């Protein structure tokens, strides 16, 4: 299935296709002291909505050493991302997990099946055209 990217640099604004990209929920589990870093990182990828929740890991200490994780205090970041950005974001996260000291973690995405409200959809997908068109009508 081939879809044209909606944010392609189209020459004429009027004919720019307004695609309706699906949304995904990105769940990132990282050490608590690195949560701020990852929230800031994700914000750079058109992510408008993120929730940060304090949590605890359950792996026992010998297991933590084995996996190279040190902290039991975790933070879960729930972010709503656009489907077409998912691969890019996951790549960046994978890169940061291995390169940042103490920044090990896991991240995964799960599909969102529905959203109600055009403004809400526009906000979550950072799609300003959708909201604008709706206002014009």
């Amino acid at each position, binding site marked *: 299935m081939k879809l044209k990217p909606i944010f392609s640099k189209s020459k004429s604004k009027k004919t720019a296709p307004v695609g309706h990209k699906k949304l995904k929920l990105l769940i990132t589990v990282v050490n608590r002291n690195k949560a701020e870093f990852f929230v800031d990182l994700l914000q750079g990828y058109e992510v408008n909505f993120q929730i940060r929740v304090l949590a*605890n890991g*359950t792996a026992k200490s010998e297991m933590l050493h084995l996996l190279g994780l040190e902290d039991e205090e975790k933070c879960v970041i729930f972010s709503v991302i656009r489907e077409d950005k*998912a691969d890019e974001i996951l790549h960046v996260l*994978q890169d940061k997990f291995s390169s940042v000291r103490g920044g090990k973690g*896991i991240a*995964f995405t*799960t*599909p969102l099946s529905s959203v109600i409200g055009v403004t809400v959809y526009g906000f979550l997908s950072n799609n300003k055209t959708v909201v604008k068109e709706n206002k014009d009508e």
Partner: protein
Amino acid sequence: MSNTFSHEVIFCIINSGFSENVMDSAKKVGATGGTVINARGTAGKDAEKFFGVTVDPEKEIVMILVPADKKDDVLHALYKDVGLDSPGQGIAFSLPVDSVVGLTEQ
């Protein structure tokens, strides 16, 4: 687009203090680790009266990422060990996961 997912994430909502039981139960059938989030339940007061149960508002949500082929076993184990009939009064459900990064191979 294929509908096969390599991993699933299991959410288990349980009374506070029972997260270890959840992990013990899940680990028996192959889960490796989980993340515990503190939460607060909101059961309707009327329903509580009608059914004659008290719902402890203090909850824990245990999030466990498992390979898709282990999902059924884990859900089944949770249902048996920490289900609604147990003191933990747990409920569990799973969501499909389409991509994962950061998992360490074991």
